[in-house]
């Protein structure tokens, strides 16, 4: 069972991640929330306590780095996968410093997303 919260200001990206996750390649995967900005994501996280989060970085209201900081403050162990464009490596690294576990570059393929989600929730080193 993997309960996923998708955070992205792009409706297209949210839908794409949702379709890929629900296509059946990840057994037991379940979407618990689709947030379009950081503030909404924090509220949904508190409400649903997901097992894993995919996080965009550039969003209105609250950006991804701040959002990661708040989510990690609630649950330091939750795996967060940053899904963003590689325009600013420094911001992405900053997101990882705040507690995200991995980074997936946009645009991504279905295979890349599935592999990244599996990796980010695995306990292997």
């Amino acid at each position: 069972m993997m309960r996923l919260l998708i955070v992205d200001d792009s409706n297209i990206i949210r839908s794409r991640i949702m379709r890929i996750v629900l296509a059946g390649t990840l057994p037991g995967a379940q979407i618990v929330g689709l947030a379009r900005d950081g503030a909404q994501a924090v509220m949904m996280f508190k409400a649903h306590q997901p097992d894993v989060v995919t996080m965009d970085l550039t969003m209105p209201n609250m950006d991804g780095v701040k959002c990661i900081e708040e989510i990690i403050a609630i649950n330091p162990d939750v795996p967060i996968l940053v899904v963003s464009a590689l325009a600013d490596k420094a911001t992405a690294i900053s997101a990882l410093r705040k507690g995200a576990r991995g980074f997936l570059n946009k645009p991504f393929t279905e295979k890349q997303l599935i592999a990244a989600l599996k990796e980010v929730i695995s306990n292997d080193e």
Partner: protein
Amino acid sequence: MERTKQPKRRRAERYRRIIIAIGLFIVLDLIVLAATLFLSHQILEDVATVNLAGRQRMLSQRIAKTIYAAEAEQSTAQTANGTLSELKAATALFDSTLRGFTVGGGTLGVNGQELRIKALEGEAPRNILRRAAILWTPYVALIDPLTGEITPAAETIRKASEYSKINSNKLLDLMNQLTAALEENVADKTDILRLVQIVGVVLALANFAFIVFKLIGRLRAQDALVKQQQRENAQIFATIRDGLFLLHPDGMIGSQMSASLPTVIGKRVAPGDDFLSVLETLVPEKEHEAAKEYISLLFGDRVKESLVASLNPLSQLELRAADGGGDVGKEADSSASRFVSLQFSRVKGEKNEMGVRQTTHLLVTVHDVSERVRLIQAVKDAEMRAQEEIKGLLDLLELEPAVSRRFLNDTEQSLDAINDALRGAGQTRDYPSTISEIFRRVHHLKGEAAAHSLSLFETLAHRFENILSELRDRPNLKGEDLLAIPPHLEDIYSRTAKLRSLAERMTSKDAHLTQNAASGHEFGYMLEALAEKVAINQKKKVRVTADVPDFGSLPDSKATMLRDIAIQLVRNAVVHGIEATNERVISSKTESGNIHVTLKRLEADKFEFAVRDDGRGVIPDHIRESLVKSGRYSRAEADSLDERTLVMKLFEPGISTSPTVDSDAGRGVGLDVVAEKVKIMGAQIRLGSRPNIYTQFSVTFSSAA
């Protein structure tokens, strides 16, 4: 798996031999110890027995002596109880000891304590005991009556005395023999004990020597193996072409690194150096900070290594020739940059108490990826070139076929003229004039391209101008410097030919190519479009009105030249004449500048072409500054020129009042082209201006050939 098991088995085999040897050593020591203890105990017992045997000798003599004493006392009728008591005690002690020697039992020890003794073994002692028993049994029978009565009869004493005199010495001799036999037995056992100890110690020493020998052999083998591994490592590190080293958590470069590392990164580095300090000299501050953060992330175990590789800020690091700083650089073109890629891999240590293997080091590999980057750049360039050509083709197709054909013809003629100028430069060796000539041609081409919104040709011409500008400003221009020109010339040639071919295939063969396509309306429209485009580039607002109805009636040769003049003058008006919007507002003018282009017929074949703008006007001091800036006039010379002469200097090549160089101005070529065309047309040009009111260029010419 099998490969890893085999060395383990070999190691176990080697250790087993040493363990067995150590085990043998211990067992041997235990055996020797046990034998020593056992024999020592026996020897102690035997020594006690010897002492008892020695006491029997003494007791046999004491018994005889007390019997004789009792006999003597009896003769004097003074038999004392003390003598008989001593006899009784000595007899009892001798008897109990002898019985103990014979069958085992208790007696008193030499220190008077109760003692259990074992029956003696061995043929010789047993034989002596048997003989002693034969003597003792009747002896004790004669003594017993003496010890049982207070005053024994004289006859009883006499019988005992007589028996004693006959047998006492025999008994003493037997006890002597017994003592000697027992002492011999002790000596034998002592010899055995010594032998056991000697053999044990010798065997233990031999075993110890074996263990030491084996251990030394093993240590030497391991030393040899370590040396071999170190040699092989050193060979690998000396041979590998990539940079390779281990990075410690404190940022220090490990004790071993590949010899090529300094060459690959173009810096002197040594084991133990601070990697981040080295990096600081190679990358800008922002990237350095990002790299520091990235490395820190990898040393932490939270992020997944495979999911952060794409964020590596050092995956493509540009090293300029200057970065090498003469340190350890490759012998390469000094203007060329190199690209290196630094890749980081976690090195895990032993598991901690939580069962997690933590990152102890990062393995850093540094590859020279210049070739890959150049290939990617070449592909991008090719794509950009293709896109430019497609855009160029589409721009051409938007024009009237006759106009595009004429543009291409003009372009090729300009390129031919440039080619001729280059060839001629070899004979005249007047290179500055050649550059100026080529500059005018290229600038003319750029103006034409801009006027027709052909951005590809405008861009190509602008790049060409950059080269020419650099050459023109170069002191002591040489013939080989002009070799920078042909590649650009060839580039424009080939693209023109390609676009011509494509455009002709795509346009209808029946296209009506009229020489009068460039009608007055079209000419006016072209100038408006040009002004608008230049205004956008200059971030200005401009409104152009063109009143040129007679343009279509001009002969081709005059129309072509007038078009060239018009292009330069309109461009000049937008760039130099019209002020920036805020400047105009401050001067209480409309935000948009106004340019008015007119072509008036003065007589049957005489025309006046004028371009007037309502901008800042011609300011003589600006021209003076430009003359000084060009380096051709000193400050004093510039100050001495009158206004009319100053204005005329605007038509000299290389003089521009624009503070910056861009695609529209700054080269000092525009009015130079105008002056040249005016001269060819046999026309006259006038400049009228009032500061902050207007500038007007008027060209009067005849339409006759």
